């Protein structure tokens, strides 16, 4: 399975957010603040789990706020409280949805975001194989990672 590189991730986040982002690839990395509501699964055309995506709550809040021009303070307050902000996470889910295009560009298998929003508790079902630390201009930073089942 091929994952997006740093350049493709930066382009996608900048297009979606309308803001500059700094991205660093973290070899053998893990996300720091895994949350059941910021864990996503892409399915193949047979509806089988194919790729796991995990994101730090801070990144999900920051990106979800930035793309809708919501003040950074709302995102950072929600992160500090450890409370998932429903609206910001709904926005971030759209980013995750669009990242499927980067996976489909690089692989023969076609994937799409699981529409059922299965909450993934417990240990991750697979290791992350591509992890990025993303800092969004004027907003918080955080990690996002991909792993193949």
């Amino acid at each position, binding site marked *: 399975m091929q994952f997006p590189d740093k350049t493709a991730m930066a382009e996608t986040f900048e297009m979606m957010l*309308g803001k500059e982002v700094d991205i660093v690839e973290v070899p053998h990395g893990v996300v720091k603040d895994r949350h059941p509501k910021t864990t996503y699964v892409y399915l193949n055309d047979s509806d089988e789990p194919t790729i796991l995506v995990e994101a730090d709550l801070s990144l999900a809040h920051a990106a979800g706020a930035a793309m809708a021009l919501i003040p950074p303070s709302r995102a950072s307050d929600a992160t500090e409280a450890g409370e998932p902000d429903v609206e910001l996470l709904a926005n971030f889910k*759209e980013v995750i949805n*669009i990242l499927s*295009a980067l996976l*489909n560009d690089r692989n023969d298998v076609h994937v799409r975001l699981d529409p059922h929003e299965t909450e993934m508790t417990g240990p991750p079902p697979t290791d992350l194989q591509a992890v990025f630390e993303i800092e969004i201009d004027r907003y918080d930073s955080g990690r996002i990672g991909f792993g193949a089942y």
Partner: protein
Amino acid sequence: MQILVVDDSPVMRKIVRRTLRQAGFGGHDVVEAGDGVEALAALEEDDFDVVMSDWNMPNMSGIELLEEVREKGNQVTFGFVTSESTALMRARATSFGASFFITKPFTAETFEDALADTLD
């Protein structure tokens, strides 16, 4: 001109609006619908010049909306703004007279290229 933006994601509808402005199409009226059913109702109530629709949506998908629109004899300029774009999807959309296929993420230039002939 009047543009109907159809997407189940409110933030994506905002981004499409923002990108239309950035592409120089800010002078047109934009109406939003959250899925194909809402869009169909809007199209029955009003005349639109362009429909920009997501593909995957609850209740009625974008391609189902296009099929229904054409069945009703409405030849409005219709295009897709979607994260998925397989050759099969494009072929199906084209067979129902879709005019453009914009893949997310997009830029203002993408919108300019897709819409210049219709909206200028």
